[in-house]
């Protein structure tokens, strides 16, 4: 069993920029430039950078949502799962929570009904909610509750790696803490690795053991949490830390 569950080598990604003036046509622009890194089993790796730097694009390339890229992406044995930033769009508003959580099992077609219900029930309790939530629709839940459901949904696929794209940015401060603790628990107890994408350096520091800093599509620095936060080398890293530590 390999100890690396994700290896990205020299990844470049592109997109067609159609926002030129009328009649100008589209231009092919490069978003990610020569991105290389690895994620080992059970690691929590952070990816920080300001908005628009390409963090979400990296996630989409890894998951195969964005296809216009070259370079190598090597996955472990299972497909990675994702938790999205906006807990309001990531759950089907027309379905109940129970239906949403059961769907991955239905698609796989493995378990039968009573066992499926049991698994859904287990999962919803694992993320700190109870069975009462299964009957409700996403629109009736708060942001924190929805994010927990998103996490439960990702867990249904029993992934080795979860890519969390700004998972707590849209949540209230008092709730952020709880969600981060939940992710930490899943990591320590179930050995799930995380690629934690955020623009919030403090949040990244709180749970990541390794950090990568991205600027304009390039990883300008990567290292352990202490290396990056206590002795940053790249000027951009220093700039980011300065803005945050000035509080």
């Amino acid at each position, binding site marked *: 069993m390999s100890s690396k569950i994700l290896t990205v080598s020299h990844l470049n990604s592109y997109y067609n920029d159609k926002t030129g003036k009328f009649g100008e046509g589209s231009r092919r622009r490069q978003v990610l430039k020569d991105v290389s890194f690895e994620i080992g089993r059970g690691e929590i790796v952070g990816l920080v950078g300001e908005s628009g730097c390409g963090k979400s694009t990296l996630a989409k390339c890894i998951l195969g949502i964005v296809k216009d890229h070259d370079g190598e992406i090597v996955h472990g044995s299972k497909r990675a799962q994702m938790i999205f930033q906006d807990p309001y769009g990531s759950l089907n508003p027309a379905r109940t929570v129970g239906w949403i959580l059961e769907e991955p099992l239905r698609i796989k077609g493995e378990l039968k009904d009573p066992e499926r219900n049991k698994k859904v029930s287990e999962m919803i309790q694992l993320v700190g909610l109870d069975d009462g939530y299964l009957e409700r629709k996403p629109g009736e839940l708060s942001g924190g509750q929805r994010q927990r459901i998103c996490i439960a949904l990702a867990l249904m696929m029993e992934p080795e790696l979860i890519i969390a794209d700004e998972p707590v940015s849209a949540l209230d401060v008092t709730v952020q803490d709880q969600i981060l603790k939940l992710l930490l628990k899943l990591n320590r107890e179930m050995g799930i690795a995380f690629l934690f994408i955020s*623009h919030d350096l403090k949040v990244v520091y709180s749970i990541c053991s390794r950090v990568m800093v991205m600027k304009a599509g390039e990883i300008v620095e990567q290292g352990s949490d202490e290396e990056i936060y206590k002795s940053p080398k790249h000027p951009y890293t220093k700039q980011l830390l300065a803005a945050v530590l000035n509080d």
Partner: protein
Amino acid sequence: MLDVIDLNIEFHDHLTPETVVYDFDLHLDEGEIVGIVGESGSGKSMSALAIAGLLSRKHMKKRGQILFDGVDLLTCSRNVLRKYQGNDICMVFQEPMTSLNPVKRIGWQVGESLRIHTSLSEEQIKEKVLKILKDVELDDPEGVYDKYPHELSGGMRQRVMIAAALVCDPKILIADEPTTALDVTVQAQIIRLLKRINKKTGTAILFISHDLSVVRKLCGRVLVMYQGRIVESGDVNEVFDSPKEDYTKRLISAIPKMEKLKYEQ
């Protein structure tokens, strides 16, 4: 200057009436910067919208008074309200992408309040607009004047929003989470800009946010809201250093700090 007395807001468009703001009192003097902090559902944005006169009178039952220079904005005629809006009371919103009209140039948008509230000529309006664009620390006012919103970055758009709000020299600027959608480095600049403008023009600022650290840097007084009510209020340093209410204490302790999260079994 601004006195909100016993404001209660109740929504009636669902089957059961939903009270969103209870017993809200606020006093704002000229040149003050007051912050309203709270999480989602606290009622802070609702209160701000009410003060700005942006809440639909049809679907809501309101109680209390919003006295601006003696005039009750809740009960005055629409024409009187419109006179104040954009002129004496202005508002800046959170999402600069949707609060700017994407098909109109910046120069036109910023000058719109002047066009509505004054009888200045187009040249005079342009002059004022260029001046205010410079005041909000935009590097190339003439260039920005001709641009469209999508050609600017988030930070620049927010400055444009602030410019549009300030162009009529308002007495009150209401800012609803103006820095939330911005990067950390830009946030700091916007806060500094607001402070400077407050000092220079004496415009009072009502600053609404969920981010306490930002509120602490900018405001003199703060109101803490939770589930529609004001739970604590006072001088910002006092509230932060010696919070009295449980919720305030919880809010303060939840401020993200640069420290490792501990895993407990």
